[in-house]
């Protein structure tokens, strides 16, 4: 086996350390994948509006290397009320619920989407891991929505990853939520 050069190992350890430290800051709550909190969020949304459907989700706290976080935020839209309401799920409970005042005519997410762990693995393979190592980057946000970010498939549900770096522009990685293919990457 070829030994890894020391600087590269240090950089990798530092990147991993950043991720782990971020997750550790989120206290002792067990991190979970995005889909695991969906039914709890939906129970709240249906109580608010029977026609509510999921249009968006993102991590509310730092994401670990398995695509899990102690808190996820889910955004629902009710056509009947023409309102958006967000639910933040932590430890299997709704810990925040609030109306979001913005116009976001996002279509409902497709029923099938790969979970956050699988999507993160795809993004890391795509360009995320390299960006983290080369630019001292860290994963800042992962979000799921439909009808944005992918010109080739404008109706697709996609995971979008935002990697931040102190050295320059962020890296965006768009992963198809159906098959896990990396659709698009850009710096901005």
């Amino acid at each position, binding site marked *: 086996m070829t030994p890894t050069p020391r600087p590269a190992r240090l950089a990798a350890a530092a990147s991993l350390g950043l991720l782990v430290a971020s997750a550790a800051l989120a206290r002792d709550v067990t991190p979970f994948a995005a889909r695991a909190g969906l039914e709890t969020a939906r129970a*709240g949304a249906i*109580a*608010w509006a029977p026609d509510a459907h999921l249009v*968006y989700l993102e991590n509310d706290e730092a994401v670990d290397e398995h695509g899990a976080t102690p808190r996820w935020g889910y955004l629902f839209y009710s056509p009947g009320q023409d309102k958006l309401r967000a*639910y933040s799920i932590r430890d299997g409970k709704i810990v925040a619920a609030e109306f979001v005042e913005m116009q976001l005519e996002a279509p409902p997410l497709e029923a099938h989407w790969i979970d956050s762990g699988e999507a993160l693995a795809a993004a890391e393979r795509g360009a995320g891991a390299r960006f983290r190592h080369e630019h001292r980057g860290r994963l800042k946000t992962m979000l799921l929505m439909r009808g944005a970010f992918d*010109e080739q498939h404008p109706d697709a549900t996609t995971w979008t990853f935002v990697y931040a770096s102190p050295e320059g522009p962020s890296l965006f990685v768009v992963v198809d939520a159906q098959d896990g293919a990396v659709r698009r990457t850009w710096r901005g």
Partner: protein
Amino acid sequence: MRPLPPRPPLASLLLAIVLASTAVAVTTRAEEAEVKVERVKPDRPKLATLQFLEANRDFVRGELDRLRQKPLARRGDGEALDPRYLEYSKMLAAILADKDSAQVADEAQRRRELLASITELGDLEKQLDLMDRLLQEQQGRLATLEADFTGRQQTALVVVVTGDPGSTPISALALTLEGGSKVTIPLRQDQREALARGGVLQVFHGFVEPREQVVEVTLEGDRWPQGDTGYLTLDPTRDRLTFLKLDLSALRPAQGATSIHARTWLHETKPQKGEG
């Protein structure tokens, strides 16, 4: 959060009394808990959610709008079609119809021949088995739908009022749930008399979010200070029916709404297996 549709007043009162009495009788009292009515709204730390969306709403909206089909201002004027082209499509349809008729005749002939053979009888039996299986599967799906839409208990809250406030009658009671609008329930003379005789009045029945939340209770009456409000912290259990009883028998104007004795308990109906 989302009240159920109102019933006629008298029927509602009577039904409420019956329902509440029945519910009290069948409820597991082990889960009953006293709820403190506070004068000041509890201050809970607010957790930020969807921070990226909040900070980049223009960017996200822009990405969404960029891929959406937009109507153009330019009119799409059409030109008159050559009538011959329309005739061609009619001719094509006639050709296809004739072809279909021929195929149907051939098919019928083949079927007659097949029916004459013993093999066809075996196929028919298989077809019947298949239909039988499809029917069974359909029944299974219907049973699932029935369980989902008629048997599933969503998170709900019932608020009932008991007790005679005595010399400090109240004319109305208002409830405000977090994220919901204020619901004011006027207490008519006959309802107040029912309370004085030990009745139970249902004042709210609706769906609520399964999370810790503050419910505001405001009392109104000639001898009550304007807008006297108490705050109760409830945590309705997901997919269960939570009862909140407001006992007005110990009401004191000097103490205001905090003199309400409040208790909660869960109805014994639990989520069915496999409902998540």
